[in-house]
């Protein structure tokens, strides 16, 4: 394990002590989150909350060739850190989250959480998907309770805690509503509440705001930042929107296009709260975007080539069968 510790990338941002006094002083702190939160658990700075060491993932395409999706990804995320992963579509950034969540298995390398290898899904790492992940057959409240129910927490406590988290995302009034009655932004807030309710150490957010309109997204950025600073969770946030990444992250990690590699990391040391329209945010985003553009161009080229190649392989396949 100590070898993993050596693998810290150089760009690792400086502050090591937790940025936020986890929980203490947050309103309603008596309910659940405080007792199980981070405050009691001092993670030594050498052991990352989430550590990815030499993660590789390859799979076989339908035409039978082996495709390398992720290539030796190394990344260390500190407890309480907000890391954004950006990259062109097809760079495997969502897949990376699935690996951390334990929903998929990497081909090689290790995902470590608190220094222990991930064996499968666990409620210490909860995913927030882009959309449509809430259960439409349950009410808002029951959705938020779901993780606790799976853990076998008694009903009364579940209900109380679900209410607490719904208040946190300002949806207390909608406890009894069904999902289809909510707007897109409200749904994502329920998803956040549902994720927080299982009291995960790590939130894995897979382009959670990509399907929302700009105003709603702005609001949710503020809300997420507030929740993050109140609860002290570790957040790994995947997006293709560089400015969003700079707006939210302590650090922005840039992945290359196919195979996904860590191209570079940008510590973002702008003061919080930030705003999407801040010139400083825009300037930092521009820097990152310049590097990202190369990858986007590669992805577009590949897409074009893929289209052409696809036609050719069909032709060849047809002939070889004769």
């Amino acid at each position, binding site marked *: 394990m100590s070898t993993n510790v050596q693998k810290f990338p150089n760009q690792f941002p400086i502050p090591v002590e937790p940025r936020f006094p986890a929980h203490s002083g947050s309103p309603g702190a008596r309910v659940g989150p405080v007792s199980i939160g981070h405050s009691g658990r001092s993670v030594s700075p050498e052991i990352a909350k989430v550590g990815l060491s030499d993660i590789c993932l390859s799979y076989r395409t339908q035409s039978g060739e082996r495709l390398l999706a992720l290539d030796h990804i190394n990344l260390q995320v500190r407890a309480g850190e907000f890391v954004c992963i950006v990259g062109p579509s097809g760079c495997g950034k969502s897949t990376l989250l*699935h690996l951390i*969540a334990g*929903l998929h298995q990497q081909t090689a390398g290790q995902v470590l959480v608190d220094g222990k290898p991930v064996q499968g*899904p*666990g*409620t210490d*790492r*909860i*995913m927030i*998907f882009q959309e*449509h*992940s*809430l*259960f*439409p*057959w*349950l009410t808002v409240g029951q959705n938020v309770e*779901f*993780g606790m*129910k*799976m*853990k076998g927490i008694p009903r009364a406590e579940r209900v109380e805690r679900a209410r607490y988290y719904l208040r946190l995302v300002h949806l207390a009034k909608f406890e009894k509503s*069904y*999902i*289809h*009655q909510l707007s897109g932004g409200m749904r994502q807030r329920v998803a956040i509440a*549902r994720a927080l309710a*299982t009291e995960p150490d790590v939130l894995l957010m897979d382009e959670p705001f990509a399907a929302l309109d700009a105003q709603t997204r702005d609001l949710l950025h503020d809300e997420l930042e507030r929740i993050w600073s109140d609860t002290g969770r570790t957040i790994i946030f995947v997006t293709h929107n560089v400015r969003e990444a700079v707006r939210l992250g302590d650090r922005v990690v840039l992945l290359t296009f196919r195979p996904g590699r860590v191209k570079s990391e940008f510590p973002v040391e702008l003061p919080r709260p930030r705003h999407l329209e801040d010139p400083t945010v825009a300037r930092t985003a521009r820097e990152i975007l310049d590097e990202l553009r190369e990858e986007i161009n590669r992805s577009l080229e590949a897409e074009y080539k893929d289209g052409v190649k696809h036609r050719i392989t069909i032709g060849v396949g047809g002939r070889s069968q004769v």
Partner: protein
Amino acid sequence: MKRAARYIIFYSALFGLWTLLAELKIWPPYLFPTPWGVGQALYAGFQDHTYLIAIRVSMQRVLIGYGISVILGMILGLGVASNKFLEETMGGLLVSLQSLPSICWWPLALLWFGLNQNAILFVVIMGSLLSVTLAMEDGRKQMPKIFSQAGRNLGAKGFKLFWYVLLPASLPFIVSGLKQGWAFAWRSLITAEMLYLSLGLGQVLMMGRDLNDMSAVIAVMILIIAIGYIVDGVVFKGMEHRLQNKWGLAPAT
């Protein structure tokens, strides 16, 4: 209200035509009974408890048989949907078996179980199992993958994953299959009961035939239709309605 008016017009016309044909006495009354005759037969049947007993026996059988079908069908369907080998091998077999009328199992059922209730149950199960299986398989495939991912992510696995996530998530896709399974179960039951002295509705119907009492036959036919309709209208329509409310699906018209 317009709808109610249409119903009234249609059914009174039907009723009038029936009365007219019966009153014309083209066929003798024991071959073509009047509506009053059927009404009397219905009254008499309920009066001496024959129909109540028959309905109870038949409902009991269909509930047991259909219940077993649903449980088995869900397991089978889920297995076929989540296993490539099973899908390729058993999938085709299931579809082709679907074309076999369930009563074709009757001779085998008699040999295997003897002339008793179990033989009838077997036919009922064979009648509805395939519908449920195919519906479940289809539902499992149509169900958005993200639900099972989200469920596993939130700590559901094994039976809990099935019960709290996979099953409710696929329900909108399987409800029509469940309904079809019910209809098949009900039909198979009546058919099987007609072939064997069994106290059920099917036997009461055959009794009417043996006594050359067509009023009684038609009375039982009406009962069979009515029960099928009520179950469909109350149980399945209610289920569909609830699903639509929760999921926000457009009501099926």
